[in-house]
């Protein structure tokens, strides 16, 4: 199956118009010393029915859909309303590109302006961009902004930040000679005393997750205050769904809020495409990475939307740009916009509350099992929590998989010392009966 409409007759007429006898004449200027491509493993091509048959078989090799999942750790299963999939599959959104011609892209531009407004509302920030790649790269971009703003060369990062985010920070910053200092945790949250020791007048940014990789709520307010006191910028890495109930970071003076937007209406897709959120205080506007959509008017005074402040961007400023980003995650931002509007003011809060209630119910049921205890009993948590098991988490997960459950995260992935640590995520998608069934299966498996 091919998607090229022109027939042999079309091609003959076109070549005639161009004034050449055969297609290959168009390649005459290319020296013969460059070999023509020869493929050894590219397949032969197929029709739609053959494709569907093969791909259904391939998808069926994933056992995913058959399991009840209690995995989170940066990627979360939530119910995605049907309208989100419908509207994002509309060709007018799906097959447009970056809205360079504003007059012919008002749909995308207005939706992005609405997205920016929603993210500002959730985070309490003045400005939000139209998306970056994912939570980890947004965190790196926030660090880069802080380094430029402060002209300092040290970043203090909570050790409770998702390990893959910390690795990405390392990748982005190491060649610039930036020192990354990890602030250790005590009882599952960053130790304010230790962090205060690490944060000094050489610190460009203090990066704190909320909630952190253990599901716990961090003392972000105290850490942001300490950052402010030494002239560093505070960066809070959020799960935006938690902001349905949690105090917006803007309310406690945070400079930059980044995060992973996947919980807002995006399916898990084995890790992407996801949605990098980036919001900050107005004073950092000119250093924001990525696209920004602004409201303006046309000559008749009608309201309209356009990409703005493009002099920050690579296609204008080249090597002096605030970031190299060009293609972002526009369609994912549209999904989040539709999702947040579908849930609405009450629905979004209710959703966050249900996540909290179900996670706490599950924690209660699981810790009633002999030998299972909370790993960090003191810290409040959102929709996931860490447990200490009487056996290795890997062993329990294997036994649960055999019983149709995808168990929590083996915390060795976060810290090799936590070999009996188990991170369980419970969202609104799990009924009481499913939580009870998990608890029964764990009891049986141990």
């Amino acid at each position, binding site marked *: 199956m*091919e*998607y090229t409409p022109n027939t042999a007759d*079309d091609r003959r*007429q076109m070549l005639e118009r161009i004034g050449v006898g055969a297609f290959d004449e168009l*390649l005459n200027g*290319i020296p013969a010393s*460059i070999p023509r*491509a020869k*493929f050894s493993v*590219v397949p032969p*091509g197929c029709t739609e029915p053959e494709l569907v048959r*093969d791909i259904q078989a*391939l*998808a069926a090799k994933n*056992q995913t*859909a058959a399991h009840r999942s209690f995995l989170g750790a940066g*990627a979360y299963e939530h119910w995605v309303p049907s*309208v989100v999939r419908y509207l994002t599959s509309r060709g*007018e*959104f*799906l*097959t*447009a590109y970056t*809205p360079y*011609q*504003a*007059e*012919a*892209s008002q*749909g*995308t531009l*207005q939706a992005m*302006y*609405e997205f920016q*407004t929603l993210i500002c509302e959730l985070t309490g920030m003045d400005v939000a961009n*139209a998306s970056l790649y994912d*939570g980890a790269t947004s965190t790196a971009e926030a660090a880069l902004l802080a380094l430029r703003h402060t002209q300092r060369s040290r970043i203090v990062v909570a050790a409770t930040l998702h390990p*893959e985010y910390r690795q990405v920070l*390392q*990748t982005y910053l190491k060649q610039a000679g930036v020192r990354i200092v990890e602030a250790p945790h005590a009882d599952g949250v960053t130790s304010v005393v230790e962090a205060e020791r690490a944060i000094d007048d050489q610190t460009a940014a203090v990066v704190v997750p909320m909630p952190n990789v253990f599901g716990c*709520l961090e003392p972000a307010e105290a850490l942001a205050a300490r950052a402010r006191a030494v002239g560093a910028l505070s960066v809070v890495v959020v799960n935006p769904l938690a902001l349905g*109930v949690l105090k917006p970071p803007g309310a406690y003076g945070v400079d930059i809020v980044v995060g992973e937007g996947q919980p807002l209406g995006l399916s898990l897709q*084995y890790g992407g495409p996801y949605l990098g959120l980036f919001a900050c205080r107005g004073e950092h506007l000119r250093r924001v990475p990525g696209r920004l959509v*602004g*409201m303006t008017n046309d000559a008749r005074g*009608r309201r309209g939307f356009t990409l*703005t402040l493009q002099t920050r961007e*690579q296609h204008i*400023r080249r*090597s002096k740009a605030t970031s*190299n980003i060009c*293609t*972002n995650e526009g369609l994912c931002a549209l999904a989040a916009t539709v999702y947040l509007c*579908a849930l609405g003011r009450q*629905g979004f*809060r209710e959703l966050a*509350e249900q996540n909290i*209630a179900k996670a706490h119910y599950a924690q209660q049921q699981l810790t009633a099992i002999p030998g299972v205890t909370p790993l960090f009993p003191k810290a409040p948590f959102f929709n996931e929590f860490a447990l200490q098991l009487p056996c290795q988490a890997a062993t329990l997960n294997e036994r649960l998989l055999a019983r149709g459950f995808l168990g929590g995260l083996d915390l060795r*992935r976060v810290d090799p010392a936590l070999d009996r640590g188990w991170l369980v995520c419970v969202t*609104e998608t799990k009924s009481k009966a499913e939580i009870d069934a998990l608890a029964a299966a764990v009891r049986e498996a141990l």
Partner: protein
Amino acid sequence: MKPTADLGTGYKLVPGTGPHRASEPLIFERSVSGRRGFSLPPLDVPMPPAGVTAWIPAERLRAAPAALPEVSERELVQHFMKLAHQNFSVETNFYPLGSCTMKYNPRIHEELTALPGFSTAHPYEPDAAVQGTLQLLGELGQWLGDILGMDGVTLQPAAGAHGEFTGLLMARAYHEAQGRSRKKVVVPDSSHGTNPASAALCGYEVVEVRSNARGRVDLAALHRAVDQDTAVFMLTNPNTLGLFEEEILEISRLVHGVGGLMYLDGANMNALLGLFRPGDMGFDITHVNIHKTFSIPHGSGGPGGGPVGVKRHLVPFLPGPLLKKEGQAYRWVEAPPSSIGRVRAFAGNIGAMVRAYLYIKTLGAEGLRHVAEHAILNANYLKARLKTAYTVPVDEPCMHEFVASAVEQKRLGVKALDIAKRLLDYGCYAPTIYFPLIVEEALMIEPSETESRQALDQFADALLAIAQEAKTNPGQVQMAPHTLPVERLDEVRAAREPNLRWRPSPDGARPQGALQGPGP
């Protein structure tokens, strides 16, 4: 704008706005307290009387719910449908945006990518539970290596610019491993803006070399620009004028001769598919924008994907983790210490990779070559039709795109921007304009292989008609567009008084009427 007739029913007829071209209030302006567009199942676990404050201290909680809009599902769908109707897109319009390869996106890809096996897989599932996805990623990596002529491929980067960053970090690590830290990345003056931006992000100094009179890299200038401090020469082939760099083998020899690496910005890979391979031209590293070449829908600005292929000597530096096949099973293994590390969380934009896999599997080796051949033919045909009215600075056979110039029209007071805006009235999206920077009044036109001869003719007719209008009625072109929901926007105001988010008006009243602006 004044309504011409009030039908007494609240409906107004407004000149210049068809039913699908009317403007739409912001979703916040449609909000009515108490409306809902989605209902959760009732909570079936205990909620204490104190609510969530029983678990989370009150001082950590919001004082009031976030002020999200309150709309019914019907209003929500109507709102976004009206916005959809204000967009041009590949599915609805000719979309010749140069350098972006706006080809048709097969619909079956959307259906198959949404299969629950793929769409519900969690990134931390055990490898044994996701063998379908891992096999797909493993085979896609092999196929891309074959297509690019490269020995190792990473699928992790989320977009082309992200791929550039990844590739340059690998170059940096490679040079450091050789014990020669180098300072410069050399790019042609016709390069994409992401190239120098990515190089700067990697801590490199950027050196530009000028193009020669035929729009190609000037070999003598390159000779002067590269030395022992050159880490990478980064270019695209065909270049941004749509011209094949015929001296590419000499260029590679020159750069390799001083110990530098050759990086191909694979943005223009659509022209090479099945015809030539970057690896056979001396390139050591290349990324490929799968949303261009491999038909991932552009999604109003993403998501895309930017896999990077490298030659054997750079394989140790690939980002980790790495996918390995052992017998019939795939599993992730940690990358060696020489790896540059991770460039994003999890395994990449997997949904985009699934579509790229489907595309390659459907087209096959021969179909891929036809893509390049049809893309090249379509571009040359358009060029032949348009050069009667527009200047083509380098009039030689082009590859998948070409750059025309509106210098002739500019003498009449009609700029490339005006022509772009007037095209919108004809129902065509505009080419990329004012790029590459080395061509005055540039119109960069890339029709892609999925357009028919008739569609190309319609577009050519529109551009020729506009060239005529530039002579007979320049005002018509200078003031365009005339048929869209808005006329040209005040971009100066947008930048001077940035309004980047909506706020309720201070008196709490909602702006009335869809067509009234907020006022200055």
